């Protein structure tokens, strides 16, 4: 596991987000620059202060450096898969801890809506490639992959469609309190059940949005962050594990094995347990992922996540407010980035009508072939 000495060593100094929706006049670079300017303004730093650069989903790091005039001392780029938001943030922590850079800009730009991304069909690149082998049988899309997993969960544990609906409804209700969310109209369980199937057992409202937008985060040392414009949000714990072997096909255990590894490490590093976090940000590409994450990280017993979420625990005012921004399902499909920003904004108390009162610890997690989690704290320890 990462050294416990790194707990609270690095902080989020600034965050920036663009508008979300359909923004055809901006390409992925433009969206990244827009978000980065917002993040720099947020913390009061300038482009000249950035000495580390990590870009995600933006096609080319060199061009990004050209359009922003940046000459960082550390640079990397990662593929446009949602699991990489957590990986990038963890890489930034390691780079800062190693002294390779002091102030890292993490920049994400996604023009998927305007570019006509479909996440299925001929352009399907989910997972490890080779998807074309299965196209003749009509198999395609990350949605279908999760539908296959959810069918097994339903068969094994009796999980019900209405329980997935409870997840989607909670996040939409949160989005209704978020002025920047793309989908803000609340819906009922009847509306959920009446929504058309895309890949059964998943319906339209189980799927994340496809929209344009950009997100940036500025990470730096805890010491430097204290001198900046906003209160620092400390990264108290972080951990990662994976299930890459055989990952063309859904995992037998709903990614429980790697999630348990990550949970053990992230809580040990932060010195807290699942019962101590005030809110969760769960990577919600599809509603089932939320259930798998709650089980894998130990918030509820294996197989019981459906019943666990059904009584409003994930809603604001419930036991564990989750995806208070509306998440990927209703706020914006920023592939984990905007959820990490929401964690920061919650801990700074900036969330207005959707604020979790007295939030001191917020946990982010992704369930995918690469599992990541971070625990963000208002206090350094």
């Amino acid at each position: 596991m990462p050294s416990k000495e790194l707990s609270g060593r690095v902080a989020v100094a600034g965050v920036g987000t663009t508008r979300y929706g359909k923004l055809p006049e901006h390409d992925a670079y433009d969206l990244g620059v827009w978000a980065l300017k917002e993040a720099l303004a947020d913390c009061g730093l300038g482009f000249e202060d950035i000495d580390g650069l990590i870009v995600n989903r933006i096609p080319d790091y060199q061009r990004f450096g050209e359009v922003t005039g940046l000459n960082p001392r550390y640079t990397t780029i990662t593929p446009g898969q949602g699991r990489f938001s957590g990986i990038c943030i963890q890489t930034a922590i390691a780079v800062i801890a190693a002294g390779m850079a002091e102030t890292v800009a993490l920049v994400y730009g996604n023009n998927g809506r305007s570019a006509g991304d479909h996440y299925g069909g001929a352009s399907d690149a989910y997972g490890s490639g080779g998807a074309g082998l299965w196209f003749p049988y009509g198999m395609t899309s990350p949605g279908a992959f999760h539908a296959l997993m959810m069918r097994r969960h339903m068969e094994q544990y009796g999980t019900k469609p209405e329980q997935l609906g409870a997840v989607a409804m909670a996040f939409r209700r949160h989005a209704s309190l978020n002025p920047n969310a793309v989908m803000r109209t609340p819906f009922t369980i009847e509306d959920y059940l009446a929504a058309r199937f895309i890949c059964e057992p998943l319906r339209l409202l189980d799927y994340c949005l496809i929209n344009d937008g950009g997100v940036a985060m500025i990470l730096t040392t805890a010491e430097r962050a204290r001198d900046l414009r906003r209160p620092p949000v400390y990264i108290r714990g972080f951990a990662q594990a994976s299930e890459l072997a055989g990952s063309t096909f859904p995992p037998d255990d709903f990614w429980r094995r790697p999630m348990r590894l990550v949970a053990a490490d992230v809580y040990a590093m932060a010195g807290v347990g699942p019962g101590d976090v005030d809110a969760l940000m769960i990577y919600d590409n599809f509603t089932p992922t939320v259930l798998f994450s709650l089980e894998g990280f130990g918030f509820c017993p294996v197989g019981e996540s459906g019943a666990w979420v059904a009584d409003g625990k994930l809603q604001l005012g419930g036991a564990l407010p989750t995806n208070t921004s509306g998440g990927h399902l209703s706020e914006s499909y920023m592939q984990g980035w905007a959820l990490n920003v929401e964690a920061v904004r919650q801990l700074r108390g900036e969330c207005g009508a959707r604020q979790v009162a007295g939030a001191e610890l917020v946990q982010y997690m992704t369930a995918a072939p690469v599992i990541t989690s971070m625990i963000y704290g208002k206090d350094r320890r």
Partner: protein
Amino acid sequence: MSEYAKPLPPDDAANRPFRDGAKRGVLMLQRCLDCGRHRFPAARYCAQCRGERSEWVATSGAGVVESFCTFHKAYWPGFEHEVPYDVVQVRLDDGVRLFSNLVGVPREQIRSGLRVRARFDPVTPEVTLVKFIQESK
């Protein structure tokens, strides 16, 4: 007769034995000569033991349904007239997994644990798809 409108598998040289086997009605898989495990699609190295020596072998084509899903959206024009259609996730007795279609089983009877065996479905003169039917008792 109209042209076949659905996507066809990529015709890559590495998987040619699988493709040719299907045309003959045989499910061919690559087998590691070091640890004996089967694999598909083709790879130079065994993911289990990293051995490089392999052969292609005929297999029984028998397996079990692990899960299934039902597409209501057509991602290709060729599937527009078939929605809703089912995709099954099959684990062959040889350990290899495939995505495919189950022929002749009503949707409400598809479930995980169902025993199946390969059925070969020629769709063009060059391509035979590996689909599945329920194994008779």
